[in-house]
């Protein structure tokens, strides 16, 4: 196994070098046979990473502690699922996973039906191979997944209990799929620049891949938030930790790209800007990895100090400089834009504002994340940049973003006339003002909440109107019943309506965020058995405190009976888990969710005499956050689904006869 694992990495490295060289030679000499050999190499490289991954999974699954990685992150009593998920618990395993996804994506593109006969393929694969090469070098020489220990330990160190949660099995995988996914649009962009061909086909393929990466990035972040919410016991879901920021920044810039590319598609403008956004998104993924692996910033996600971060920083530098060089050398070609703007009040300009805000938000996150370093460098004082900073700075930017999102669908391309504006916006504006007044009279007093919910109402109405008018226009022609008209309307314009579903999902998420951030209540109380805590409409009675053993772990739990307005809801068990091979205990929250609010119960401490201290929180609107996230996923899948009616990706129709 040792041999097989290591061999697959070294052979993978050799094959990646070979395929890269042979592809470049093929491109230079225009020999299809060389290109075909390179393509075969890509597949072989993918097989190598797949074999290495299977070997590592096998070693983890069978607890072979002579391997440093296995003994560092697992122990024999761990359930099989968590033994396997230790694959991405440490540096080398997670880099292997990264490399596996990267080579998988490369193979998918090289052998995709849509890309057949496309001269971009050799370029794209060569660029992605350079990436893979970087990871192979790291895996082979810096962070080796199959390193052996001098002596075989009896037992492994075990997996960090924080990571022993179903959410933690999926969260890193989806995040990596998103992270790695952004390398694909980057490769497409570079290939297009080199070939001097930024056409419709390029836009459509790049956008598809960006949506895929974006979707996984979104999913990864949401799952991480969900995990933090149930596992960490602090009642929050987003802490603006450097690593969370690292995945949020490319998410913002990728979102900006997905919107501004529409202007390029329609008007053939902003080409340089769009490519810059792709380069930026990709560079930010590398920057994020640098943050996690270098230990320059303190973070709950950090993988510990290692010099790995430096490699990523250097690689990022090389990539950015190379990309900018290619971009500059094609500057004149891209500058020629065909379309023009006709008015300030148009869909085009709203997209520009959207881009401004998204990139502005990304900059604000970036600035906040690196500010501790800046402060230390400039005046030698360390500062902490935490949740209050980011909430204060991001709230106005993201709220303006929501407003633009609400307004944009009803603005016309080219130019919106005053009549058009009045027709489209009078009703939503009046209704949201009424909504805001209602909120004030119902006792909502916080300005942020009122403005935020007002904007969300506005957004719901404008999006509803989009669907309503579309269905109406369709029925005028076809006389179909409403559901059929709605269905056909949507599947004939997947991207547009998928996008709207995503918007509505984001609005739900915003509802959850605003509600839970502004109106959460929290109580902490020490109770004797039989005593209760009253919080809002709830009465929580402490029934008993007990202990049970699960494997080598001891679990202390309390039985709490919860009544709401006098009616019994049920009995809940908040827990504290003490691990046999880990110092810090972890919290298992007891949760009662409804569409209005979450009752969040944490067992904090207890005494010999049977008293226990509980933290009880009520987090309003939390369910909407998760509902919204599901809608975002549905919307994105709907948008990229290849429908019968839509030729989403036109076949390549370039003029150049090239090797492919």
């Amino acid at each position, binding site marked *: 196994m040792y041999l097989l694992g290591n061999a697959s990495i070294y052979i993978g490295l050799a094959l990646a070098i070979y395929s890269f060289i042979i592809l470049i030679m093929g491109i230079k000499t225009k020999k299809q046979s060389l290109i075909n050999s390179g393509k075969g190499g890509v597949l072989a490289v993918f097989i190598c990473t797949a074999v290495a991954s299977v070997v590592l999974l096998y070693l983890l699954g069978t607890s072979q502690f002579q391997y440093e990685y296995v003994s560092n992150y697992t122990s024999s009593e761990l359930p099989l699922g968590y033994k396997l998920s230790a694959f991405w618990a440490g540096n080398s395993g997670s880099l292997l996973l990264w490399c596996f996804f990267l080579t998988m994506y490369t193979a998918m593109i090289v052998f995709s039906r849509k890309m057949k006969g496309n001269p971009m393929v050799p370029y794209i694969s060569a660029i992605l191979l350079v990436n893979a090469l970087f990871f192979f070098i790291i895996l082979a020489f810096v962070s080796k997944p199959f390193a052996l220990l001098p002596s075989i330990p009896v037992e492994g160190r075990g997996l960090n209990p924080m990571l022993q949660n179903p959410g933690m099995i999926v969260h890193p995988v989806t995040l990596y799929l998103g992270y790695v996914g952004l390398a694909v649009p980057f490769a497409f962009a570079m290939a297009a620049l080199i070939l001097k061909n930024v056409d419709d086909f390029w836009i459509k393929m790049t956008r598809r891949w960006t949506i895929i990466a974006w979707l996984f990035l979104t999913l990864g972040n949401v799952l991480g938030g969900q995990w933090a919410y149930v596992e960490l*016991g*602090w*009642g*929050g879901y987003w*802490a603006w930790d450097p690593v969370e920021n690292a995945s949020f920044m490319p998410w913002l810039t990728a979102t900006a790209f997905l919107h501004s590319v529409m202007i390029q598609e329609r008007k053939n403008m902003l080409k340089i800007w769009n490519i810059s956004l792709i380069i930026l998104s990709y560079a930010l993924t590398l920057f994020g990895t640098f943050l996690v692996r270098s230990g320059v910033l303190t*973070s709950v996600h950090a993988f510990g100090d290692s010099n790995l971060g430096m490699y990523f920083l250097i690689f990022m530098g090389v990539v950015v400089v190379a990309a900018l060089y290619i971009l500059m050398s094609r500057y004149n070609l891209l500058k020629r834009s065909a379309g*023009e*703007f*006709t*008015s*300030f009040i148009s869909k085009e*300009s709203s997209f*520009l*504002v959207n881009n*401004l805000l998204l*990139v*502005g938000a990304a*900059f*604000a996150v970036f*600035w*906040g994340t690196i*500010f501790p370093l800046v*402060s230390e460098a*400039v*005046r030698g*004082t*360390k*500062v*902490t*940049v*935490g*949740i*209050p*900073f980011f909430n*204060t*700075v991001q709230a106005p*930017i993201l709220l303006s973003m929501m407003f633009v999102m609400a307004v944009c669908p009803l603005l016309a391309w080219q130019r919106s006339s005053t009549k058009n504006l009045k027709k489209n916006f009078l009703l939503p504006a009046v209704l949201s*003002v009424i909504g*805001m*007044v209602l909120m*004030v009279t119902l006792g909502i*007093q916080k*300005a942020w909440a*009122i403005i935020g919910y007002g904007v969300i109402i506005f957004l719901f109405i404008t999006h509803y109107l989009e669907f309503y008018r579309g269905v109406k226009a369709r029925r005028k*022609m*076809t006389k179909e019943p409403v559901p059929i008209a709605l269905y*056909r309307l949507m599947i*004939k314009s997947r991207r547009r309506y998928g996008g709207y579903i995503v918007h509505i999902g984001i609005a739900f998420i915003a509802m959850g965020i605003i509600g839970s951030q502004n109106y959460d209540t*929290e*109580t*902490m109380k020490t109770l004797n058995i039989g005593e209760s805590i009253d919080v809002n409409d709830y009465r929580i009675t402490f029934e008993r405190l007990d202990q049970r053993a699960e494997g080598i772990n001891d679990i202390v739990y309390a039985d709490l009976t919860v009544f709401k307005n006098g009616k019994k809801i049920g009995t809940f068990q908040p827990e*504290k888990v003490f691990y046999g091979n880990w110092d*810090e*205990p972890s*919290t298992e929250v007891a949760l009662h969710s409804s569409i209005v609010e979450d009752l969040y119960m*944490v067992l*904090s*401490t207890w005494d010999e005499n049977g008293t226990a*201290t509980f*933290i009880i929180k009520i987090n309003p609107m939390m369910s909407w956050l998760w509902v919204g996230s599901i809608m975002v996923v549905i919307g994105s899948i709907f948008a990229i689904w290849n429908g019968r009616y839509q030729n989403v990706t036109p076949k390549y129709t370039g003029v150049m006869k090239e090797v492919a």
Partner: protein
Amino acid sequence: MKKKFAIGILILLFGFQSFLLQTHASEANKEYDYKSAEFKEVATQFMCTCGCGQDHYACDMAGCKNTESFKKDLVEMLNQGMDKDEIREYYVQTLGEEILTAPEKKGFSLTAWVLPFFALGGAGTGVFFLVRKWTRRQEEVEISEEVTLQDEVEAEIISSMIDEERKKYL
């Protein structure tokens, strides 16, 4: 008229807001404990040093020992009549700015707060002038090749053709 009405409503809204805020402001002379809102305000300013990555208010006592004494000190200071800012000042003096969950809004740290908005403002102005340049250029083009489609019959024919075409795609 409508504009005035809208502005009127806005002013009313804000007026109402400040009225509500005032009614909440006048509560004084009470004992503070871990549950008081004032305590939350004070404790969320400080970063817990146990490595939990949370502020002292959020840090769960079971996992962390040093937050316990810190919280006790905070309550004492509050009961001695120190306010939020005085307590912050005290800790920044003794432990350094790092103890705060967010940088101070003065001195060099102020740049952390304002730079994002300066950047947004600058970029926004740039975008404004860019769009203005683009739209002006467009207007010039429009003036030079003014084509009018006044003929109603022609317009009707075109719209019926468009309708026919559209039906094919439904």
